[in-house]
């Protein structure tokens, strides 16, 4: 768990990983760098560098992110949540950008998501088309990418989640921030990076009203247990 100045979901996510999922997890201050070999890296939510310039832009250019990029290129699992997703896209780990919501206010509420991909290390415990409830909390979460890139993401099944209604229908009414094609979770080319605006750590315990998000962390754990750490090949080649 990388902590940047202004991260504020690092301890919540750490709590879920340690106390709910039972995983040995370190909080790593961005200036310290990685001292151990890890099975996965999580970039938590928050407001790194006060969202100056663009959300995630400055954190994406810190030396520890150069390490994270190398780690991801070698096949390591990287999960970017909210500000972590903005950092991951700014760092070029996934295509596109998360920018100011179409209606430019901060939105903090539960939303419905349709699971679009169930073969990635982050989503393998879900059913395809499953509707899950996970909160969002952002002002800069509108996903934008060039049309050719969107077409490629769809073709390669690299959209992990779309906003939807309770029945799983995708459309403008259930798209809270104006994201292109309601996309709010994207996988990297090799499926080892997931950038998502919703907060699975806020939906990982019954007391929080939803446990739908914990499957993301449990998927990562199951994937690592099955295939071992650092899995550079494409997921669909294995299944």
């Amino acid at each position, binding site marked *: 768990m990388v902590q940047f100045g202004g991260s504020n979901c690092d301890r919540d996510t750490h709590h879920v990983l340690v106390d709910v999922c039972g995983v040995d997890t370190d909080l790593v201050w961005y200036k310290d760098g990685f001292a151990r070999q890890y099975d996965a890296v999580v970039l938590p939510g928050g407001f790194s560098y006060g969202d100056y310039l663009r959300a995630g*832009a*400055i954190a994406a250019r810190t030396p520890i992110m150069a390490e994270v990029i190398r780690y991801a290129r070698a096949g390591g699992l990287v999960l970017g949540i909210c500000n972590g997703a903005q950092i991951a896209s700014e760092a070029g780990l996934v*295509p*596109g*950008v998360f920018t*100011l919501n179409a*209606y430019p206010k901060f939105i903090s509420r539960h939303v419905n998501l349709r699971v679009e991909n169930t073969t990635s290390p982050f989503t393998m415990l879900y059913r395809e088309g499953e509707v899950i409830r996970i909160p969002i909390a952002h002002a800069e979460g509108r996903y*934008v*990418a060039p049309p050719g890139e969107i077409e490629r993401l769809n073709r390669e099944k690299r959209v992990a989640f779309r906003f939807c209604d309770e029945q799983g229908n995708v459309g403008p009414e259930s798209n809270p921030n104006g994201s292109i094609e309601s996309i709010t979770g994207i996988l990297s080319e090799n499926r080892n990076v997931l950038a998502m605006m919703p907060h699975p750590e806020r939906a990982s315990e019954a007391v929080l009203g939803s446990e739908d998000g914990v499957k993301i962390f449990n998927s990562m754990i199951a994937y690592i247990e099955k295939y071992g750490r650092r899995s550079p090949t494409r997921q669909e080649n294995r299944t």
Partner: protein
Amino acid sequence: MKYTVTITIRLKEGMLNPEARAIQHALKNLGFQTEDLSTARLFRITLEAPDAEAARKTARQMCDRLLANPVIHEYTIEVE
């Protein structure tokens, strides 16, 4: 030589600009009718460079590597 580069970064043509729309709306509330409104971000940077072309090249690198996001932005650079 010392140069001052002025970098203007704006959204590409056709990109949704919610900030501009909100400002336009606020101006309307004050009684100003506007046909169009766009926003941009301006950086004025003083730096050392052997010549104006080198200063421009450095500014371009700054834009490409940090100041602009090529997915949504375009930029112009003036050197003086």
